[in-house]
């Protein structure tokens, strides 16, 4: 905590180097978030009025829900996380972004990939594997874009002036590696010309879903939170050894989960999953405790600011991860299978944990990168309450409804249709929450877009000013 003299200059320079790449990543991501949530809402509306989109195949549940899930993960969470990670890499390196043009190209490639994938799902060309619905062209674009951004991050790290490693580095490096590894592996297996046959496909699908939604989100989200929590609270991370322990147990055990108990596969697969899930309790608790210790006693008011977002995100990480782990508890999981419970947990992980931390980080980063205050600070504040309240209102009814549904499914005297219908009253509340989340996402979109437009107008003004400025006398040739 002893800034040398040139650092203040340095950090503005560093932030300026991130400006264009980050705007490209965040702008698209915010748009995809709004679109994804809108599609998710459209999908849920089929439960309120089943014939609403009967004549519109694009918006039938199967397509809209898949497109919405993928837009949340690939459209918002991953590009936003990559943007935030790039910025943290530059800040921790105390060096400007290396190869600043590469992430701009990559961001555009990524967004084109998401667009191609989403359109493909909506016209019925999805691959049919959950979380891997994007057909091959889109998957190739996403992977190429990811690798380009990862290379930029590594180059920035290599050019660092501050040699010391910080816990966020481990998490972010692991996240870069983890996505590249699991996404390419799963795509090579499932979206290739020679996919493995039979139930192996499902096993690979479960493995990917677990690695993206549990391990990757935890690595990226906690890596980012471990940068911002100490920074905003002004207290050191407590402690690096504890964080290392959480990190190692997470990457070691987290990746074993994912195969449901009811899977029609040899008994060792679900058993190993349950074993991994049991031990994954440790990193979740450990990382939660590190975050708690870091912020406890901090005298920083959060009132709807980035600190609020990130604290809520870490709390969501602990709760949603424990709920996720509970899905692999042998007896209990038989009740929860095929209910709304799993859907609720996934949405909590994506919205309550990842989106929350990322939106908070974006609000923290954007003013620095643009060297300008947020254009709509009130909306940013409202965003926290809409997103936090909306997420809880969205997922908690789904969890309770799922439990009730599961208990009814387990009772042989209750017809299947009746047991399914139990969830309807919960879905009514849950859709209200989804609407609030969507409003929150609109706040983010407005802030990012107004900021981009202001910046572009500023650029145009500078150009016009430069063109129309009277020539200096020294430059006038006589």
């Amino acid at each position: 905590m002893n800034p040398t003299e040139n650092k203040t200059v340095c950090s503005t320079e560093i932030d300026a180097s991130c400006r264009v790449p980050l705007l490209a990543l965040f702008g698209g991501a915010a748009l995809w978030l709004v679109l994804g949530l809108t599609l998710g809402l459209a999908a849920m509306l089929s439960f309120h009025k089943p014939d609403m989109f009967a004549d519109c195949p694009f918006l039938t549940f199967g397509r809209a829900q898949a497109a919405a899930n993928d837009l949340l993960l690939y459209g918002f969470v991953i590009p936003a996380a990559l943007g935030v990670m790039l910025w943290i890499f530059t800040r921790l390196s105390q060096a400007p972004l290396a190869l600043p043009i590469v992430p701009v190209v990559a961001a555009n490639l990524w967004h084109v990939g998401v667009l191609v994938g989403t359109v493909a799902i909506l016209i019925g060309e999805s691959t049919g594997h959950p979380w891997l619905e994007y057909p091959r062209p889109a998957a190739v674009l996403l992977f190429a874009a990811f690798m380009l951004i990862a290379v930029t991050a590594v180059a920035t790290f290599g050019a660092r002036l501050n040699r010391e490693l910080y816990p966020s580095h481990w998490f972010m490096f692991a996240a870069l590696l983890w996505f590249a590894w699991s996404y390419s592996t799963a795509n090579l297996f499932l979206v290739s010309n020679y996919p493995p046959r039979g139930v192996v496909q499902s096993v690979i699908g479960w493995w990917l879903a677990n690695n993206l939604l549990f391990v990757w989100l935890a690595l990226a989200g906690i890596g980012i939170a471990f940068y911002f929590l100490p920074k905003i609270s002004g207290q050191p991370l407590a402690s690096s050894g504890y964080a290392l322990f959480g990190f190692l147990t997470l990457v070691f055990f987290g990746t074993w989960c994912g195969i449901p108990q009811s899977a029609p596969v040899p008994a060792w697969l679900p058993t190993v999953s349950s074993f991994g899930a049991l031990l994954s309790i440790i990193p979740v608790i450990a990382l939660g405790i590190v975050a708690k210790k870091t912020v406890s006693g901090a005298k920083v008011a959060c009132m709807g600011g980035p600190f609020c977002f990130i604290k809520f995100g870490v709390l969501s990480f602990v709760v949603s991860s424990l709920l996720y782990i509970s899905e692999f508890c042998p007896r209990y999981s038989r009740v929860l299978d095929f209910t709304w419970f799993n859907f609720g947990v996934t949405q909590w992980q994506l919205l309550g944990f990842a989106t929350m931390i990322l939106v908070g980080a974006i609000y923290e980063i954007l003013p620095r990168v643009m060297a300008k205050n947020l254009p709509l600070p009130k909306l940013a504040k409202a965003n926290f309450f809409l997103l936090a309240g909306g997420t809880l209102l969205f997922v908690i009814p789904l969890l309770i409804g799922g439990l009730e549904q599961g208990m009814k499914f387990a009772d042989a005297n209750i017809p299947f249709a009746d047991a399914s219908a139990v969830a309807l009253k919960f879905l009514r509340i849950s859709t209200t929450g989804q609407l609030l989340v969507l409003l929150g996402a609109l706040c983010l979109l407005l802030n990012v877009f107004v900021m981009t437009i202001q910046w572009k107008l500023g650029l145009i003004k500078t150009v016009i000013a430069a063109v129309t400025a009277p020539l200096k006398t020294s430059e006038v040739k006589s």
Partner: protein
Amino acid sequence: MSDENKSCCHPTATRSSAPMWIIVVTLSLLFFGGLYLDSHSGWFDAKVYAPYNSAEKLEAFQPKSVAAAAMARGKGLYEAVCGICHGSDGAGKPGQAPALAASEWVTTKGFNRLARIPLAGVNGPMQVAGKDWNLAMAAMGAALSDDNLAAVLTYIRTSWGNNASAVTGDDIKKIRAEVGKSPQIYTAEQLKALPE
């Protein structure tokens, strides 16, 4: 930016390591998880599926010989086709079906009479194990294959204290040919007129 000075210093971390208690908890979870893995994984055997836990347990369900396999198949078929009326303990049900355990119709030396009952059915008054019955049984076994019917009859003849000879598929084939394709339902007298 008012906090620009603060923001240029990147966050630090204190150096202490993870506390002992969480390492102890990890190790104990590893221990209990290991016990669970040991008892439920079937030791990574590709043939072991839930709800079975181990290859040994599955092995116990596998018949040890051809005769044992036929017995196991006979038991399964008996319980699906015959056991509903005759009872899975072979004791019969009052007013529904006579006993097969210790029944003189079952434990005969040959099975020429016995095999015709499931093949063609039996009707009218009949004395079984000292009790008088007057019911009708349809040709419940006519749809079974020769080998399957032989397995069921073997099961009946050697279970619940019965100790008569086994029946083979070829025997049933012969009797089925004698009975004919659309057989007349037998009465007890007609059966008794046939050789054992």
